[in-house]
C-alpha cells in the first residue's frame, strides 16, 4: 500500500564522501516497504520539477532509512536537512527483490551508492538467520561507507578501483574471484552502475546463476504515468518493447532485459 505523506528527518549524516544516510520517522511507508522498493521525495521547486527517487535502505515499524549520494542541487539541499525537517514523500513504490529459501548462496553485489537497497536486503537476511555474502565496490577509500554499517555482516567483501581499501578491483572482479568456492544454487542481488549490472548479467548467463538487478533511471513521476524510465525488454519478438523501471521494476532478472539500449 503506497502512501503520500509527510515524514520527519531524525538523523542525516555523511557516511562516506558525498554519501549520506538519513533516517525518517515515516510509519505510513516504513511499515510496508520491502528491499528493492523506492520512495519519491518531493521538493517545492518550480525550477527543478521532478521528484527524486531513492531506494529504501532500511525500514522498521516507524523508521525509514535512505542512503543517497549528493549529485545535484536537490541532493545537495537534502544533505543540509536537520532533524525535525519535514519531507514530502511517496512510497513504497515499485517491486522488490524476491528471495527463495532453496538458495544456498545469497550474494549481494553493490557499486557505489548502489549499496542502499542491498543494506535493506542484508538486514532482512540477517533477521531470517541467513548470512549473505556482500560485495561492495567503490572508486576509492573516501567513498567506502563507514565500516560500522556493515558490522553485523559475517562476510563483507569491500573493494576499490584504486586499491586504497579492500580488494583492488571492481565488486564484480572480487565476486568472480570467490565464485568457485560458493555453494550452489547462487542468487546475485545487484545494484550499481549500468556497466556493473551488464557485467553481472553476462556472468549470470555464463555461470548459470540467477541475477536480480535493481535499476536506476531518470524518472519524471515514479508512478508509470510519464512512461519515461524504460529498459529494453528481452524477447524474441522484435516489437517487444520496454519495461518501466518505476512500475515493472526497479528490480528485474538479468535475462528479462537488454543492456545495449
Amino acid at each position, binding site marked *: 500500500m503506497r502512501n503520500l505523506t509527510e515524514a520527519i528527518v531524525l538523523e542525516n549524516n555523511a557516511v562516506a564522501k558525498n554519501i549520506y544516510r538519513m533516517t525518517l520517522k515515516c510509519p505510513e511507508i516504513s511499515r510496508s516497504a520491502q528491499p528493492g522498493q523506492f520512495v519519491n521525495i518531493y521538493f517545492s521547486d518550480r525550477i527543478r520539477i*521532478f521528484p527524486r527517487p531513492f531506494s529504501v535502505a532500511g525500514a522498521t515499524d516507524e523508521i525509514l532509512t535512505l542512503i543517497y549520494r549528493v549529485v545535484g542541487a536537490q541532493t545537495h539541499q537534502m544533505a543540509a536537512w536537520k532533524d525535525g525537517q519535514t519531507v514530502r514523500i511517496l512510497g513504497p513504490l515499485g517491486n522488490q527483490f524476491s528471495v527463495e529459501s532453496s538458495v544456498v548462496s545469497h550474494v549481494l553485489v553493490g557499486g557505489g551508492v548502489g549499496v542502499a537497497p542491498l543494506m535493506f536486503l542484508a538486514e532482512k537476511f540477517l533477521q531470517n538467520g541467513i548470512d549473505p555474502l556482500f560485495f561492495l565496490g567503490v572508486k576509492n577509500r573516501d567513498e567506502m561507507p563507514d565500516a560500522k554499517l556493515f558490522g553485523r555482516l559475517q562476510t563483507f567483501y569491500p573493494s576499490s578501483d584504486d586499491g586504497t581499501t579492500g580488494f583492488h578491483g571492481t565488486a564484480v572482479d572480487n565476486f568472480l574471484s570467490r565464485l568457485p568456492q560458493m555453494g550452489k544454487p547462487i542468487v546475485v542481488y545487484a545494484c550499481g552502475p549500468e556497466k556493473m549490472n551488464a557485467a553481472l548479467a553476462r556472468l549470470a548467463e555464463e555461470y548459470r546463476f540467477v541475477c536480480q538487478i535493481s535499476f536506476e533511471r531518470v524518472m*519524471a513521476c515514479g508512478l508509470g504515468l510519464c*512512461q519515461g524510465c524504460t529498459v*529494453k525488454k528481452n524477447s524474441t519478438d522484435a516489437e517487444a*518493447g520496454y519495461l518501466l523501471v518505476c512500475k515493472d521494476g526497479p528490480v528485474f532478472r538479468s535475462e528479462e532485459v537488454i543492456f545495449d539500449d
Partner: protein
Amino acid sequence: MIDLSTQIGPKLHLKNPILTASGTFGYGDELADLIDLSRFGGIVTKSLTLHPRAGNPSPRVTETTAGMINSIGLANIGVDAFIEQKSESLRSFPGKVIANIAGRTEDEYAETLKKLESQEWIAGYEMNVSCPNVREGGIEFGAKPEILDRIVERFRGLTDRFLMIKLSPNVTDIRILAEVCQKRGADAVSMINTVYGAAIDIKTRKPLINTVIGGLSGPAIKPIAVANIIKTRRAVDIPIVGVGGITCGADVVEFLLAGASAVELGTVNFFNLNAAAEILEFLEEYGVAQGIGSIAELVGKAKV
C-alpha cells in the same frame, strides 16, 4: 460559493474546468489509490492508437529549467486493450472521459475512433494531430491547414460526440489551424501541445533525449500557451481548452482570462499529486475575494 461548472460548446458540460492532459495521467485509473479522481472535471486518456505501440528508446525524459523534455513516442496499449481493460473503471468515473486518439495514417485515426464509438461512457475525443515525437502521424497532420481541413472533416463525419483538436505551438500561425477546425465542425480546440526542445549532456556530448529533439512541457511553457490562447480567442468562436505549464490555481485563472473555457493539467501531475485539489480550493477563494458567481464569467475577460 462560486459555480465551477463550465460548458465547452453545446456537447460537453464539466462540473469543474480541470481536466488531465493526455500522456500525463495514464489511462485514468493508475492513481485511484492515491488521489480522489472525482476532483477532476474530466480525464483525457493517454493517446490511443489502432495497434499497441512500444514507444521510443531510452532516454525518453530529461529535466530542464522549469520544465522537462519528453519523447515517449505515443507508447500505449492500443485501443482494443484500452476498451477491454479500462472500460470498467472509467465507466464509474464521476466526470467526463475524453479519449485522446493518435495514428500513423488518417485511416488509423478513423478506425480507432470508430472502435471507441461503441463505448457509451466516452464523452468525446481529443485528436492528437500535434505530437512532436513520432515519425509518422504526429505533427504533419496538424501543421498544414489543407491536411487538417481534410481530416477534421472526416472525424466530424464519424461522430456526433464532442470533438476537440489538440494543436501544436510549433507552427507559423496557430490561428489558421484553429479556424480550419472551426470551419470543419470541431467543437473545440485544445492548446498547446509540447514545444520543440532539446538538451545536450556536456560531458558525453550526447543528446539527453533519444530522438534528439523532443517536446518541452512544464512551467517553462506557460507563457507560450497563454499567448497562443489570446491569439486564437480573437480568431475563432469555438471554445478553447488551455494546456501548458499550469501548476496552481492562479495559473488556471490566467488561462481562463486569456480565453480558455477549461484547462488540462499535464506535467504538474508528475510532481504534485494534489494539484487539482489545491486548484479547486484556490478557485473557491478567488471567487469569494473577487465577488464572482461563476468561473464562466472569467473566460476571455483579460483586458487585452
